[in-house]
């Protein structure tokens, strides 16, 4: 591989990043020594454009389980830019495209240290103290790298989210792993197609989505139903505010006079339900009043009409749709309901079951539960 001492190695390789001489060394790990030469390379290479190895990423058709891949680095970017100039074969130039962005190749020691550690770990067997470092790696700064045992004893603190000193790490032997993926990941996938509305995107809390969708006067597309968990969704406003009102007849059992209700004035079943209560409570009370023969019934004795949507109340709301069928109110989204409803009826719940409408009203939505709570 270019830029590396050309060993044409078969095993996973690691590069040691040496800050002093800025060269790349290839460290051969123990796996190779164990004669796993038949193992396919499973490397992630970072090379300047122009290297063939750039594309040598797990396209091997090996289906065997492999050891974990190790990171190997190509040239330093500053060198790479020279390489690019020399070798620009139209390979992924974007990778190191504007290396001007990198003012200095390796500013922090941490990244280098880590790559050194990757190298260290390759050489050492677990668990070992990592205190012995080859002298070439001395940074003039203590590499606070505690052995595995010490880090274990410190786990006590970790659970309580103590500040990581950032360095107590137990490195596991990469080569000790038994399995690794053999999923071939294409090295180039420039344009991932922008997906259809995906769960979790955009990253906005439901709380906010509801607010903004409520507010927009322009018809906003209903958010994809990506809420598997219960969310108290505020009801979406009915679009088309400009059209004239949509009045449908509504009759109630036991009340000879019907009413008309403007469905455009509501945006949810809940509101319709309370409208039913408002429209008929007085009338119903008056009917029962007259039928009972009493006069001057007090205002408080007007019973609110509740539970019309969930089957729990004394009355149930049904409607007739554009096909002439009688349907239970509440099954379909509000807007769909508004577009198909022709008239409404408030029936006694006992009658409804007698009529065997069939649909078990088992809606589990929070909306229904909320209605329950509100009207119970």
């Amino acid at each position, binding site marked *: 591989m270019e830029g590396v001492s050309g060993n044409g190695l078969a095993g996973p390789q690691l590069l040691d990043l040496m800050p002093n001489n800025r060269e790349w060394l290839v460290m051969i790990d123990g796996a190779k020594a164990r004669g796993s030469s038949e193992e396919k390379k499973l490397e992630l290479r970072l090379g300047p454009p122009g290297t063939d190895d750039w594309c040598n990423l797990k396209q091997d058709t090996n289906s065997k389980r492999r050891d974990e891949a190790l990171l190997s680095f190509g040239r330093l970017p500053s060198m790479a830019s020279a390489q690019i100039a020399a070798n620009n074969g139209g390979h992924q130039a974007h990778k190191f495209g504007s290396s001007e962005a*990198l003012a200095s190749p390796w500013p922090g020691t941490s990244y280098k240290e880590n790559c050194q550690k990757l190298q260290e770990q390759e050489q050492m067997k677990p668990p070992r103290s990592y205190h012995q470092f080859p002298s070439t790696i001395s940074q003039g700064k203590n590499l606070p790298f505690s052995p595995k045992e010490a880090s274990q004893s410190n786990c006590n603190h970790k659970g309580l989210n103590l*500040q990581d000193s950032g360095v107590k790490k137990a490195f596991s032997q990469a080569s000790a792993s038994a399995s690794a993926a053999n999923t071939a990941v294409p090295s180039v996938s420039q344009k991932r197609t922008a997906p259809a509305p995906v769960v979790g995107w955009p990253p906005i809390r439901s709380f906010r989505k509801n607010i903004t969708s409520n507010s927009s006067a322009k018809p*906003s597309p209903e*958010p994809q139903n990506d809420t598997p968990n219960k969310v108290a969704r505020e009801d979406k406003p009915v679009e088309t505010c400009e059209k004239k009102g949509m009045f449908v007849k509504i009759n109630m059992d036991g009340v000879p006079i019907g009413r008309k209700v403007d469905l455009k004035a509501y945006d949810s079943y809940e509101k319709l339900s309370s409208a039913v209560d408002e429209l008929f409570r007085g009338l119903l009370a008056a009917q029962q009043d007259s039928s009972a023969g009493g006069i001057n019934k007090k205002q408080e004795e007007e019973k609110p009409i509740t539970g019309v949507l969930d089957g729990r109340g004394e009355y149930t709301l049904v409607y007739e749709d554009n096909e002439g069928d009688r349907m239970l109110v509440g099954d379909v989204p509000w807007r769909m309901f508004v577009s198909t409803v022709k008239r409404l009826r408030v029936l006694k719940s006992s009658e409804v079951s007698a009529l065997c409408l069939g649909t078990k009203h088992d809606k589990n939505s929070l909306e229904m539960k909320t209605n329950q709570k509100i009207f119970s």
Partner: protein
Amino acid sequence: MNYFPDEVMEHVFDFVTSNRDRNAISLVCKLWYRIERLSRQRVFIGNCYAISPERLIARFPGVKSITLKGKPHFADFNLVPHDWGGHVYPWIEVLARSRVNLEELRLKRMVVTDEGLELISRSFVNFKSLVLVTCEGFTTDGLAAIAANCRSLKELDLQENEVEDHRGQWLNCFPESCTSLVSLNFACLKGDINLATLERLVARSPNLKSLRLSRAVPLETLQKILVRAPQLVDLGVGSFVHDPDSETYSKLLTTIEKCKSMRSLCGFLEVAAYCLPAIYPICSSLTSLNLSYAPGIPGSELTKLIRHCRKLQCLWILDCIGDKGLGVVASSCKELQELRVFPSDPYGVGNASVTEEGLVAISRGCPKLTSLLYFCQQMTNAALKIVAQNCRNFIQFRLCILDPTKPDSSTNEPLDEGFGAIVQSCKGIRRLSLSGLLTDQVFYYIGMYAEQLEMLSIAFAADSDKGMLYVLNGCKKIRKLEIMECPFGNIALLSDVGKYETMRSLWMSSCEVTLGGCKTLAKKMPRLNVEIFSENNEMENCIDDEQKVQKLYLYRTLVGPRKDAPDYVWTL
């Protein structure tokens, strides 16, 4: 160190309030560990499943304030199925049983029940402060218990919770003797509020500094409340709609002028734009303004308002303000430190939106900016580079381009260089969220430059495992890594399994990791809980190690697999 008696050391430690510093103190020597732990009063637990309440109490018997977080962050975006967990009741139970003198409980993304709230209210005599953020599972009945039984309640702060509103009279449950309230926030409640009760409560709370109302509180009540509580520092307005010719409105104008202490405004859950001028008189002293819940205010009105707010340090706003509006922000709010611009139309490509121009303008005008959350339609590398040059103090930089893989809108290149410039320039950056078309290169930069990075959120990015490897290798201080829809597989996952014990958690969803890879990881790292789940129960039927895992959430823990995991969660 041994020459000072313990009391002296303790007294010295009392001055150290930051949890991180106290954690460091406890590592110095056994003596310090002991002194510190016995005197510790505030404990922060970033993952409630990392430790058990028993162990917490064993180490910190004197704890008075506990902060707990439950679900992973991506639960906010509906990526975590219902009933995943995060139950606080077991904690409350143990705390109550152990007679901890709990005074403050702060919960985030947890499931709280009425029983739990009731238990709190009955068990902790000195309970003062309850803060619930993005929690769920309780009703106003639980709040009633808190109100009724917590005699010295100072703070009841409900932020964006899912609360079932029983329309009961929970506010009535505050006894007449309760006069200690300092902070009350019930803005997230949806039901009706007994307005008279609210007014009386405010009237008898002379220490009330922060009040955030729900939408059910109309303008008239707001005016009456402000008359009673002109000392308010932080106000969340519920409904702000009224006929500008009415008497109420003119009364409000006079009342507002008397609120000289007001520094923070939010809410406006229902607002008419023409009512906004009422608050102009207090704008000049505002340091914090949150209009992100206010629907339907046109950008022009927002701009007019913000021109008055010259001392603003924190601004949360909707993108209807537009790029021009952000320009006004940049020229008016020189002290701005935190800016959040939310989308008013997350799914459409509306006219109301902001682009890279707005961000550049802000960076030019507000050099003190440290925290940014910016939802926009498009971005360019050039703009990000300018931002990086102008604002070097970013601690949080979260950019969300609504089309998740959109490239630089002027060059069609990936946004690697732009983000690279940001991390290179802002040495102190601790939290980063990326979006747009991104390749492995941006992760190379992050690994190289973002030395202080603690939390990274990635979606639809990278080309290969290298991306994740760069981050795991380079970001020493990373604590939370959350990834969705990226081509990271087992290689990346398993390259450095020890790393995960230095982190709080890792989330990977819709990536390329397989069941086999996760099993390997779990086997190697017994002190991690490796949880696999999916929407339906397909994982249970899956015995094929080659199967890709839909959702992976792993976190370090001292207490092993949790016992309250639902069926669909498989802890390997």
